[in-house]
């Protein structure tokens, strides 16, 4: 990672509105390769819109969005497939296809992305690997409706990571899950990030989620998360937090700056230890 490499994702004064209601208001930021971003904000503050805009699913009214250095603002739907094949996204309600089995769901990006060419046998192996990664290798033939909420979320993570995309977007990965399942999901996200140095954007409303992503690293050798905060300045600087309020980016900084913020709205997202 060199400081001069183009940012993986860059927003320049992006404004998005629906039917006259502003969802994102003049948002600018950039994410460098290998960095993690945690997005906090109340419901309706524009976090989901931001993720969708990064994929070209929602078009900005003004401003420009760059993904891997390419301006996607004016690209046509058919031209976006190249960019989209390099980005994995976990949707809020998992968004697995109901009519397909878990295996078909996870295999979907491998065989439908135009930019990805995958043989049947190789694809099958990748699907099994991705499902093993999320510890769901026994559910290949099941339908999404047969799985629990946490398992569906894990299957959706498998679908997002199966192509090995260099940028991963997670929309509220822990919403509606119990604390134990939620921590397992976050552990998977950290694992996906550290196994291949993936740039990660995560929307969440749980401070613990951000804390885990910022302070822990997945150790490939012994297969566990380890607490590394304070020991590796490069690692500490790679995670930044952003807080949104009614479509505006009101905070962009490190965890320490977030915890020290005196703004009443921002400090609501921080879990105080005392």
């Amino acid at each position, binding site marked *: 990672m060199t400081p001069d490499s183009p940012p993986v994702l860059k927003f320049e004064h992006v404004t998005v509105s629906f039917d006259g209601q502003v969802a994102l208001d003049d948002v600018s930021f950039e994410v460098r390769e290998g960095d993690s971003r945690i997005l906090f904000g109340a419901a309706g503050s524009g976090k989901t819109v931001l993720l*969708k805009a990064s*994929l070209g*699913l929602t078009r900005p009214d003004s401003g420009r969005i760059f993904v891997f250095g390419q301006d996607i603002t004016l690209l046509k*739907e*058919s031209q976006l*497939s190249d960019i*989209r*094949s390099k*980005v994995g*996204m976990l*949707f*809020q*309600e998992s*968004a*697995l*296809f*109901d009519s397909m089995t878990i295996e078909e769901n996870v295999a*979907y*990006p491998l065989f*439908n*992305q*135009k*930019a990805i060419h995958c043989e049947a046998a190789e694809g099958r192996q990748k699907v099994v690997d991705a499902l093993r990664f999320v510890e769901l290798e026994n559910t290949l033939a099941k339908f999404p409706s047969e799985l629990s909420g946490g398992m569906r979320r894990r299957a959706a993570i498998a*679908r997002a990571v199966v192509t090995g995309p260099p940028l991963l977007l997670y929309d509220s990965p822990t919403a509606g899950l119990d604390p134990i399942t939620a921590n397992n999901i976050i552990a998977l996200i950290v694992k996906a990030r550290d196994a291949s140095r993936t740039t990660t954007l995560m929307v969440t409303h749980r401070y613990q989620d951000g804390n885990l992503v910022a302070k822990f690293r997945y150790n490939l050798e012994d297969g566990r998360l380890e607490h590394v905060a304070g020991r590796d300045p490069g690692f500490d600087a790679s995670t930044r937090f952003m807080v949104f309020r009614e479509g505006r980016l009101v905070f962009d900084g490190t965890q320490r700056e977030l915890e020290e913020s005196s703004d009443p709205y921002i400090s609501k997202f921080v879990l105080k230890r005392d």
Partner: protein
Amino acid sequence: MLEFLKSPIQTVQGFFILAGQALRNIIRTPHYSQDIFLQMDIIGVGSLPIVILTGFFSGAVLALQMSRALSEYGQVGRTGQVVAITLVRELGPVLTALMVAGRNSSGIASELGSMKVTEQIDAMRALGTDPVQKLVTPRLIATCTVLPLLTVIADFIGMFGGSVVAAMINIPATQYWTSVWRALGWSDVVQGLMKPFCFAFAIALVGCYYGLSTTGGTQGVGRATTQAVVVASVLVFVLTFFITKIFVSGVVNL
């Protein structure tokens, strides 16, 4: 006034954009032939029972009513002719289309609507698939293929229903079927097949349009479903009027 007109005009515009995309995708790759056959099975084979039932009883009730009216002129023997012409030109296509609209416009709207509100449509786009190509075009092709076939079946079953009634009121079967056969000309058959083909566009595209434009959670899915059935049914009546008008005024000469 202008604000009042804005939403219906936007709806019509959105509908025609979707129709254009769906038609363009027929000649574009990739083709999802598996989805086309699946939809043919759901829409065509799945609608067979209700189409047979409505066909049979509409033919039977037509024969009952017509034989009574015709008996005043001493022309009961022409019952088969009246049943055949009415069924093939008008009632067969319209009743079949209404049944399929009730069953499949709603089915399509609720299925696509649920996919929309659970972000599956967005996921599909994010995973490199055009939802119109994958979801709308197969349903359009399937409906356009099976609706004329269903109509032919409904027409025949209706005539058979008429023959059952004819037998009850002592019209010999040969006389009934001969008058049915003699009554029908090529223009009736062409008209009777043109109509379901046009209705199929309305049924499939209205269902898909309302499904894909669903907003507002599960409540929105219900609303989209209702709107799809109402609009598709009304469109069937509007279309049948104009197609009949074209044939009656002799623009199409056969």
